[in-house]
């Protein structure tokens, strides 16, 4: 069989762009149905998400959350484990971060506290992933089932803790006490202010740096270390991994611990960076959105950062849309759904046409060049 090589950028960049474009076109029809000009809608969303430091602050704040939950899904996915428990792991991670802030906030300097809260958030998230991982490795209980059950257990567990243990006496709201100000992760607008750059208030905080560091870490871990090699072997071909002498159970557990850890870091952004207290249902579906982010980002950190940005844009821009036109807030879910549909479920629908188009185009160019020469 003769085979022409298709350059990587066609499949890695070209195909997703076409998919997003298709999603945008269908979204356009939805707007037309709602009597909103699609062009205006795009303008509104773009302005809402990037038009002001307030807008892009929010967009990047959401992006940060999605990077954590997206990386969590991606790492597990490389071992062919579908961790859909990011929601619960992030929630329990919030407990770890929250406990450190509540117990030590104001008592030790921030620079000492931050590593502790990072460790606690990661550790609690990892612990929440450990039981499903252990059950998968030793009992063959499928992680899809167990992690989703652990989401519900996390929700009930956290609700219990908030009502019975963490809620300050006399308070009516189901939330913990506000952390001491010295434990808060600095906001970007405040930092910019101290450097003389004027920015509007937004929840964007330094966690975004940690999210980017984690992305780099995931890249090196998965593609450059022997552990990552073993994870990928397991994920791509478990019997080959067994043949190679890789300890499958150990690898499954290690992968899930790292996945849970990354999900736990979510709490740094949302709890220590913005809310400054543990609240009920603070993850709010962002753990699940991580699945879509990982899917769109093809489980690669660069893709995940870009996909997180897209979802951050949809979140923030969609909010603006709702504000401007008074449309149902669920419009955001519709837009997200279309993006996931086209870039996830229907990915292969466009792959062949795009590749064929590339081949035709390159042949045409080739002929032109031949003529010129």
């Amino acid at each position: 069989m003769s085979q022409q090589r298709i350059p990587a950028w066609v499949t890695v960049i070209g195909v997703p762009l076409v998919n997003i474009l298709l999603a945008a076109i269908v979204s356009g029809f939805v707007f037309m149905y709602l009597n909103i000009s699609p062009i205006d809608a795009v303008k509104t969303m773009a302005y809402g998400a990037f038009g002001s430091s307030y807008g892009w602050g929010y967009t990047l704040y959401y992006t940060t959350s999605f990077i954590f939950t997206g990386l969590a899904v991606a790492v597990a996915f490389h071992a062919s484990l579908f961790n859909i428990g990011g929601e619960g792991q992030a929630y329990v991670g919030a407990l770890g971060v929250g406990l450190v802030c509540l117990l030590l906030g104001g008592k030790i300097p921030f620079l000492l506290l931050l590593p502790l809260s990072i460790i606690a958030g990661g550790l609690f998230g990892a612990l929440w992933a450990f039981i499903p991982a252990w059950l998968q490795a030793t009992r063959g209980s499928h992680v899809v089932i167990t992690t989703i059950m652990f989401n519900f257990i996390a929700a009930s567990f956290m609700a219990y803790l908030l009502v019975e243990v963490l809620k300050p006496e006399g308070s009516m709201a189901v939330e913990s006490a506000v952390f001491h100000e010295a434990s808060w992760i600095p906001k970007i607008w405040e930092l910019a202010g101290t450097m003389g750059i004027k920015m509007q208030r937004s929840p964007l905080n330094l966690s975004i740096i940690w999210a980017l560091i984690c992305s780099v870490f995931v890249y090196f871990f998965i593609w450059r270390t022997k552990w990552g090699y073993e994870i990928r072997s397991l994920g791509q071909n478990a019997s080959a991994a067994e043949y190679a002498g890789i300890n499958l159970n150990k690898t499954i557990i290690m992968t899930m611990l790292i996945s849970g850890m990354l999900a736990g870091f979510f709490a740094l952004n949302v709890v220590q960076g913005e809310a400054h207290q543990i609240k009920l249902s603070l993850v709010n579906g962002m753990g699940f959105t991580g699945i879509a982010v990982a899917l769109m980002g093809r489980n690669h950190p660069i893709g995940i950062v870009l996909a997180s940005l897209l979802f951050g844009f949809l979140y923030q821009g969609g909010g603006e849309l709702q504000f401007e036109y008074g449309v149902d807030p669920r419009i955001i879910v519709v837009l997200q759904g279309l993006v996931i549909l086209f870039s996830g479920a229907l990915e292969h629908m466009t792959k062949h046409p795009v590749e064929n188009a590339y081949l035709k185009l390159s042949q045409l160019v080739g002929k032109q060049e031949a003529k010129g020469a």
Partner: protein
Amino acid sequence: MTAQTDVAVQMAIELRGIDKRFGAVHANKNIDLKVEKGTIHGIVGENGAGKSTLMSIIYGFYEADKGEILIDEKVTKISDSKVAIASGIGMVHQHFMLIQNFTALENVILGAESGMMLNVSMEKARKELTRLASEYGLDVPLDVPVEQLSVGMQQRIEILKALYRGARILILDEPTGVLTPQEAEHLFKVLAALKEQGNTVIIITHKLQEIMAVTDNVSIMRRGEMVGHVKTAETNREQLAELMVGRKVLLRVNKTEAKPAGTLLKVNNLSWTDSAGVLRLDNVNFNVRAGEIVGIAGVSGNGQSELLELLSGIKNIQHGSIEVSGKTLDENHQLTPSEVRDIGVAHIPEDRHKMGLVNSFAADEAFILGYHRNDVYNAKLLMDQAAIKNDCAEKMEKWDVRPQDPKLKTANFSGGNQQKLVIAREMEQSPDVLLVGQPTRGVDIGAIESIHNRIIEMRDAGKAVLLVSVELEEIMSLADRILVMFDGKIVGEVPTDVANEQILGLMMANIVPDEVKALQKEAHS
């Protein structure tokens, strides 16, 4: 290239300019083919030459991008397999499409039931099948669940299925891959009977001796193109091999007398039961000495895979012991696959896709599988990418793996080159004991030659080689001693100079011929 222009001859199938692309892959390029009515027509070609695609187009699984199909000299548009069946085409796939817990009768009428009541069509089918069975020698027990029947029987049911649906043109895809020589012999008689009655048979295979034995005409495919049509009587295996590969191929293995030394691998009373409680290995005993190749013949699924997996540490020893590299392994002294590697045992697994490679990995990543924790491939924390790539590139050049691109995805290499990659990886560790499973399964003829030579080289370098293969020809041309396995047991041992297909075929069906019995007595006395 004999001209097929005789106008008086009727064509069962004619293809004109068939063209098919899958994205960037051009699977069939402008294919012309004429299959005469009432003949057996062979189609040969290496893996990926486009044979299966072409047959799938005839059977309506794919539609050609361009070209025409003529059935019985009428242009027919085969849009799906229903049209193909209605035009009298039947297909017997390499992997049977039978429902295991249905009887032969139920399998045959499945999808061809007439009327509301099942028993009416059952009785009609029974009558028809009895007739077909006696006419073509296709006897099968009609009322036994298929799972209890042998592979050869199951294949007959597949043929009956096609004939029951009125097939006059029968396509068989690699029909002898899973058969014992005796079963294959029977199949060829059936095909001859079919031809006698004016039916047309197309057989796709990579076994040239079969082509020579049963076909009237042969078409040869290479890289998606038809490169020749010849009359079988006017050709020979060497010419066919050359057409398939595009260059001259040596079909015989040249090897000298073995000079065996001390025993390096000894298996004592090894038994193994699977999780379903089936005894897969039953008290197996043998030894392999340095400088010899011991071949294990047998129809696949008779315990060979379990044996290899026990020897390489993938499966745990339950009963018996293995002596290797000065260590005795038993149920209390197990080694993991990586520890087995460390004591000098390399394992070329039977199925490179299932076990030997990770298809989505780049070649250099697949090249270190199992050795990825070795110091040479690792820096302190990260893996040493440059070392891995350079080592792979070096070995690719030495072993002639093409294309010589360590960063190309493993799946994009041809079967032969993938296999060379696995063999290079295992042999380059210079092990003392080499376990080899199906070294040339799905490998092109050109590559088989070089793989066989490498195995002989290992033997001559004083290694102990255990070779498991279902290809008798391969076993007979490589092994110095041959053990035959049946149902988890070693039926017997035959020296290669005594072995022939007849003897081994009988032993593969658990019958020990008298001449082998005599030999064994001699050895014992």
